[in-house]
């Protein structure tokens, strides 16, 4: 399919424009820039200091979708980085060696600070130590403890709040020259909560049959504003209202999920997917699903930045620092495996899915370690079959289209067999 043939909704176009605008701001030379991570990112706090938010995972994804990440990764490996480690890190380091060019074609400036939000991913700790070597800029660690017993504790929350007060906010003040204004933060958090309400409404619409949206491949577009540089802004509120309007219209018309080739004609299979997508062959990967009539009704990747639809978290302007702590603590990969299993099993049941598909990512142990056990546990809890495929985030060497397609076809045959044996009913 040629690029101009791709069907995009107004919200998708707006999302793309918003992401582009953020790149223009980062590369514009006027704003101070902080690199930080998607999971548990502190966008509202950065906004209090007019600091632009640069997310290296998003840069790696952009490079992967433009087929540039492969060369960046091999360059990083040639300079001494192991083949065994996270390809986000190597794409980022390889990008530096290629001039650090942003998707808008302009060079990234060196960051004014590194906000090392260590949330649910050990690699992020080493990643920013590596970047610090390069940029030699002020770096602040925000250590978010792992919610190992399922629920965050007061000790964890207090620890994060203290780090915000003692280390993170003072550095932001120093870098930006702007004094922290907690009322400004409250206002942003209020806006965050408004957008989050519409976001959760959107996520829950895939309980409908047929689902008007795909919550994995489509979901990554819908998540863009909330998990990047727009949570806490009027633009995010407007975006999610527009998205809500589009989905309401789709529901009214009884449409199946939208794909790059238009609306799915029929919904045959409903899946819950665990794990990030592959980005180097994103469109090809997605096509394998919609060509077989499979829609993803819930995914854990749409919770990678923060979880809103499991225990009703919303940013709370009345407790501005504590709510940031709770947001970080609640990130999907910061939750223990029993909680992740419960979340997945609930999704399979509540969204009436045919089963759980795990896309296990070589680069991401935070997601991947334990997924085989999780799959068996979810199967036990739901009685629905699970399936397992393996790809990578941004390394094209680890996407084997034939293998993935074979496994998916086998999985759908397994679901068909289950149905014939009296299991799941037809999706729609």
């Amino acid at each position, binding site marked *: 399919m040629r690029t101009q043939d791709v069907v995009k909704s107004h919200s998708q176009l707006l999302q793309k424009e918003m992401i582009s605008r953020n790149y223009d701001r980062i590369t514009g030379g006027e704003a101070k820039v902080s690199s930080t991570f998607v999971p548990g990112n502190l966008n509202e706090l950065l906004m209090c200091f007019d600091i632009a938010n640069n997310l290296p995972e998003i840069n790696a994804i952009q490079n992967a979708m433009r087929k540039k990440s492969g060369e960046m990764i091999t360059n990083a490996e040639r*300079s*001494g*980085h*192991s083949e*065994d*480690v*996270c390809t986000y*890190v190597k794409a980022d380091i390889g990008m530096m060696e290629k001039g650090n060019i942003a998707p808008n074609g302009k060079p990234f400036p060196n960051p004014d600070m590194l906000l*090392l939000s*260590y949330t649910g*991913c*050990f*690699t992020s*700790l*080493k*990643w920013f*130590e*590596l970047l*610090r*070597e390069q940029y*030699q800029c002020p*770096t602040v*660690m925000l*250590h978010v*403890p*792992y919610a*190992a*017993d399922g629920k965050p*504790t007061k*000790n*964890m929350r*207090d*620890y994060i709040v*203290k*780090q915000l007060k*003692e*280390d993170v906010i003072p550095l932001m003040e120093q870098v930006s020259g702007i004094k922290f204004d907690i009322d400004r933060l409250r206002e942003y958090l209020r806006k965050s909560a408004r957008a989050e309400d519409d976001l959760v409404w959107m996520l829950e619409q895939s309980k409908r049959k047929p689902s008007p949206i795909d919550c994995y491949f489509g979901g990554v577009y819908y998540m863009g504003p909330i998990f990047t540089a727009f949570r806490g802004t009027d633009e995010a509120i407007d975006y999610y209202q527009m998205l809500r309007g589009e989905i309401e219209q789709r529901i009214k018309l009884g449409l199946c999920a939208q794909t790059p080739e238009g609306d799915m004609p029929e919904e045959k299979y409903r899946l819950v997917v665990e794990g990030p997508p592959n980005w180097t062959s994103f469109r090809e990967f997605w096509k394998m699903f919609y060509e077989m009539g499979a829609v993803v009704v819930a995914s854990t990747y749409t919770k990678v930045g923060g979880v809103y639809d499991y225990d009703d978290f919303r940013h709370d302007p009345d407790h501005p620092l504590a709510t940031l702590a709770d947001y970080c603590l609640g990130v999907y*990969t910061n939750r*223990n*495996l*029993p909680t*992740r*299993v419960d979340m997945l099993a609930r999704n399979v049941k509540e969204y009436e899915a045919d089963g759980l598909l795990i896309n*296990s990512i*070589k680069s991401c*142990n*935070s997601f*991947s*370690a*334990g*997924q*085989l*056990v*999780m799959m068996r*546990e979810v199967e036990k809890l739901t009685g629905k079959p699970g399936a397992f495929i*393996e790809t990578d985030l941004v390394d094209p060497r680890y996407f084997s289209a034939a293998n993935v397609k074979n496994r998916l076809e086998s999985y759908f045959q397994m679901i068909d067999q289950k149905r014939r044996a009296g299991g799941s009913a037809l999706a729609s």
Partner: protein
Amino acid sequence: MSKKSVKEIVSFCQEIFEDISFIRAREWKDAHPGRKVIGYMPVYVPREIIHAAGMLPLGILGGGADMEVIHGDAYYQSYICRIPRSTIELAITGRLDFVDGMMFPSICDVIRNMSGIWQLLFKDKFVRYFDTPQNFEDQVGGAFYVQELHELKAGLEKLGDCTISDADINNSIVVYNENRAWVNKVYDYRAATPWNAPAAEVYLLMRAGMVLPVEEHTRLMQDYLAAADREERPMRDNCRVTLIGTFCEQPPLNLIKSLEMAGCYIVDDDSMLVTRWLLKDVPSDGDPLENLSQAFLHHSAETAAKYEPNLEEKGNYMLESIRKRGADGVIFAAPSFCDPALLDQPMMVKRLKDAGIPYITMQYAENSGQMQPIREQAGTFADSIKLWSAS
């Protein structure tokens, strides 16, 4: 002090090393009704608190080179390191059935998630993910850590149906201070006379400390040093290296032997750091949890799993160890797919390059069998060091 020979002591340690059913720990538990055993994984847990509860801390370092992993591969993908799959193998084959609780330190995402696997598969066991602070300020990371220690203590009290007093912990601190002192004496002795304390012997001696009660391990080290001193062993024309990267998944014993056979005396390493994580004696009076916290924050070892807040300090611990032990070079031996070791390595390599210290890198798994390439690589490294030293 006993008059046991080095051979007898090493043979005793080798027997413990090869026993993946942990018979000695089982015997310890069976000796008195109600005794509890707490397993822990690398890198660090405060064993003093477990000891103070009257429990046996048991280091679990995977299944080793010889254990066949049959079930474990069904639990982990091929791109995940070996230690979790062999540890799961130990558990589901009943070899850890006597272990009442497991502690998983905050070393990486794989070990972290393993705590969840334990929660899912072994619901009757005490499971503690042990999160140490990455912030080293007293009122921030310190306050968090003290509370974590209190929660650990409370968990052990509940498990053991006992009370752990400050005096109990202070007594255990004394015992572990002594143990660390003897560990350091062994390391000092090896660095001074590596031909008299081969790396494989020291390794086995420390591995015994993962299983034996701490008091017994201390006596064993005392006996070893006395015995080693009584023996005359020939000094070889070897270079002196620091071995880095072995802090979690363990190298096969043959790899350690191969390095020395290839001409590299190992004069320092980062294996079993729990035995020497704290760099100074912990005060044995006052609030023991505060004291353990202070020791962790301000006097603990550096490793890839720990954040270094200060760019200028990054790598200095390694450089100081090289200087102190008189190493000529560094061998980075990282387990395959080990995120902490492999992500940290480029930064450490840069420090070595800047300091003009030679190094090589290699990878292993705990069950690596082919040692010829290792010997060739290490042998070439040793030759090149000797060649440079002579020029």
